[in-house]
């Protein structure tokens, strides 16, 4: 069954207040076109989770679409910090539950396996766990290992409503490949109630069946498939295109104040009707072509 649809329709399936797990890591495979469409459609009150906060999360927070983040810290690598997320935390306007990368991943892992909780060695003795206990009260607990008698910190599973994952290629049913490191994406998909796949390219079901061991996301977990070239721009997609340094710098500059960020949104989000118009506005094919990855290097 084909699940191929438009970005607008896939985004339209998300109710305000939903919990989304997004596939970005810093400035790689971020769900940027998706985030821009969420903002245009006026979806709000979201919870965003990610094991490392990325540019897709920061854009959504900066646009006021997010009430709560569950993440393991994050940055835009050398380009800068997650300025919008940080501003929300500093002003108290954003509820941020801050873990480590592995503890968020373990929460997805528990969710993906249908387990009631998962023990972890991380977080003990840190101020991270003290803050999380104060904020949530119920997402962490200490138990006794029934076999050894040892005391263990345990985490509650994360069960997002929707995982949104940027991939290189998928078939129309949503069977998808992720080339390069997959960070927390396999666990995000399996922990979530359903998944939206954003693919740079749709490949045939035959191609999937010829190399099924390369399938990272089973189509059975996918509700919508969107084919959208350069959907992660200005972040990178391994073996497809490099990050656009000039556009990320532009974002970092704009994020410095709410006013300049509002102007950024007016220009590149609200000021364009869809992803195609966005790509034209950031320079079109002349600008995007040089970003295409060298086939041997992958960037």
């Amino acid at each position, binding site marked *: 069954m084909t699940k191929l649809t438009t970005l607008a329709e896939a985004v339209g399936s998300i109710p305000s207040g939903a919990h989304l797990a997004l596939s970005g*890591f*810093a*400035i*790689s495979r971020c769900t940027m076109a998706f985030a821009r469409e969420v903002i245009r459609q006026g979806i709000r009150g979201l919870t965003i989770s990610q*094991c*490392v*906060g*990325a540019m897709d999360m920061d854009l959504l927070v900066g646009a006021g679409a997010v009430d709560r983040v569950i*993440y*393991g*810290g*994050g*940055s835009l*690598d*050398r*380009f800068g*910090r997650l300025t919008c997320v*940080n501003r929300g*935390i*500093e002003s108290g306007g954003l509820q941020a539950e*801050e*873990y*480590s*990368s*592995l*503890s968020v*991943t*373990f929460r997805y*892992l528990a969710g993906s396996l249908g387990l009631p909780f998962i023990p*972890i*060695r*991380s*977080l*003990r*003795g*840190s*101020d*991270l766990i003290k*803050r999380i206990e104060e904020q949530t009260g119920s997402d962490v607990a200490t138990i006794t290992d029934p076999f050894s008698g*040892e*005391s*263990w*910190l345990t985490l509650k599973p994360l069960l997002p409503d929707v995982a949104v994952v940027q991939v290189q290629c998928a078939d129309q049913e949503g069977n998808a490949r992720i080339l*390069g*490191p*997959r*960070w*927390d*994406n*396999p*666990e995000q998909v399996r922990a979530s109630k359903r998944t939206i796949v954003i693919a740079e390219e749709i490949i045939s079901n035959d191609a999937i069946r010829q190399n099924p061991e390369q399938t990272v996301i089973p189509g059975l977990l996918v509700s919508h498939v969107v084919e959208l070239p350069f959907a992660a721009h200005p*972040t*990178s997609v*391994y073996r497809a295109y*490099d*990050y656009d340094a000039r556009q990320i710098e532009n974002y970092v500059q704009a994020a410095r104040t709410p006013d300049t960020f509002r102007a950024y949104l007016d220009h590149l989000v609200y000021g364009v009707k869809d992803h195609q118009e966005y790509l034209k506005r950031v320079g079109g094919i002349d600008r995007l072509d040089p970003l295409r*990855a060298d086939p041997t*290097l*992958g*960037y």
Partner: protein
Amino acid sequence: MELDYTPSELMAVAGARELQDREVVAVGLGLPVVASFLAKQTHAPNMTILFELGVIDPEPVDCGVGLADPRVWHRATVLSSFVDILGAILHKGLVDVGFLGGLETDPYGNLNTTLLGDPRATFRHMVGSGGANDIASCARRTIIIMRHEARKLKPAISFVTSPGYLAGGDSRERAGLHGGPSRVITDKAIFGFHPETRQMTVLSIHPGNTLDDVLGTMGFAPAVLQHVPYTQPPTREQVRLIREVIDPQGMYMG
């Protein structure tokens, strides 16, 4: 003629010297990357380098802007996931050394990468943990690399992101953690930790500095050995490798 080298190069070389052949090392970007690649290209060819997001043993030919940059994944033997690297290798206990940087550390090697200021009043939020807390909690030992400044080496830090020896003594063990920091490498000195009190202790001073230089630019008084030697300077070959092979554009050394 004396060899010309920068304090950052000495820090990278000192970091490399802490690594042994066949060890498994979890690395973040910056100086730790230079230290690890230097060790691998000199005395530790069988060392394994891990990046948290799912990268094992890369051989980059270009410098990257961060761990999310495919340039630093080049020629890896494995590209997998957080569960694979931080779970099945680190959490399981197979990582010998974790390399960590930070905004601040204290006399017990606790590290802050989260925020500066008062977490209950006014503060600036920075980066957070990423895999740092996991590495500090699960690696057999950690090496901290940090600039030698009073505002970074403080008696108490704003936020404990990654545990060192917590309040000293056996408090780390009582929290259920093994391992702990083995070294702090700054641009003026190398520190270890007292085996019982777990207090930071000056082990060596980099050439060109005095003990007063080291102690006068810290926010707390570390323990000091009776005879503090000078840190061994880099060799000509180590400096050449850093400048010509590992970081020719000076992206990691700053």
